[in-house]
């Protein structure tokens, strides 16, 4: 339990990479990239955690209470929203690839036709 977030993040990296490498469909590859992003978020949150720490919101808790690191949470929340739009960009590329060539298989799309 002491190293679980780190090992889970490493496993997610492995699974995401495996998905991207063996993918036969561009949409599936995009979703595997989302899994990779989830792994980095998990690692960051695990690094910023603190035993018996509260959330870094001091509305009803005194600011002297031991709170977790707010920097990694701030980085993670902007990353998730930005990731959603970058995934939209990748999916738009997939749509255009399908319209141009009629297939979504990355192996068949490997040859660039002018």
């Amino acid at each position, binding site marked *: 339990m002491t190293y679980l977030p780190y090992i889970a993040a490493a496993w997610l990296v492995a699974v995401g990479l495996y998905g991207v490498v063996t993918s036969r469909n561009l949409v599936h590859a995009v979703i595997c990239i989302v899994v990779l992003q989830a792994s980095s978020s998990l690692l960051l949150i695990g690094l910023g955690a603190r035993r018996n720490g509260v959330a870094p919101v001091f509305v009803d808790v005194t600011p002297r209470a031991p709170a977790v690191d707010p920097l*990694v949470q*701030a980085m993670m929340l902007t990353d998730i929203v930005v990731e959603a739009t970058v995934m939209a960009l990748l999916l738009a590329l997939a749509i255009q690839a399908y319209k141009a060539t009629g297939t979504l298989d990355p192996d068949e799309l490997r040859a660039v036709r002018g």
Partner: protein
Amino acid sequence: MSHGLRMLLFACGAAAVLLLLVGAAVQLPPVGAHVTEYGQELNRLAYDERHTTDAVTAVNFDLRGFDTLGEELILFAAVTGVALLLRRQSREREEEHEQARDRDVPGSSDAVRALTLASVLPLVVFGLQLITHGHLTPGGGFQGGVVLATTPLVVFLAGHLGMFHRISPHWLVSAGESLGAGGFAVAGFAGLAAGATYLANVLPLGTTGELASAGLIPVLNVLTGLAVASGFVSLMHSFLEETLELRDRSDRS
């Protein structure tokens, strides 16, 4: 390189990387044992010097505001990229119908329509609350903007594409996005004008816990919420255009 050879190469590389990662992970301090001094200092700064109760928003828009400007420009660029990629090509411009000529689209059921239209007002209010109270409770421009952006989508689910276009016209979405992203960059100059650094918090800080406190942070929250909401609605515009049935110019007989 054949498929099998590629898989073998990937397996070797992945095994090595996984071993390295797990080996490095168990040498880190256990989760929760190490207290980061920078994090504790940020918590203290956010409460004492910036008068916010939400340290995460203070880090996002004040203590590390320049990074958030970069993230927002990434979002802007991605939305622009999607609009560029999915623009209407000249050969597709001919005829577009939302449904096939001689088929009757059933339309949404009464349950879907009731549920979605009943949720429009709570979504708008909740989104606005998240955006404006970002410096008090967990929330902020990014989260509230995404919640606001689901409102036109929910209306689209209840009705049809024409309704979606009517409540979020293109000029409004473009204006919102440009105002949000550009406004963030320009609001940073208020710091330079007051003699401090770019994006410094130079507005009056007020009392902690009030809505009108924390200086420049609520302003940046509102601008970011506007940019994120407009960006997501613009994405939906681009993708929903694809659902229209298009007739290629070549198959006009």
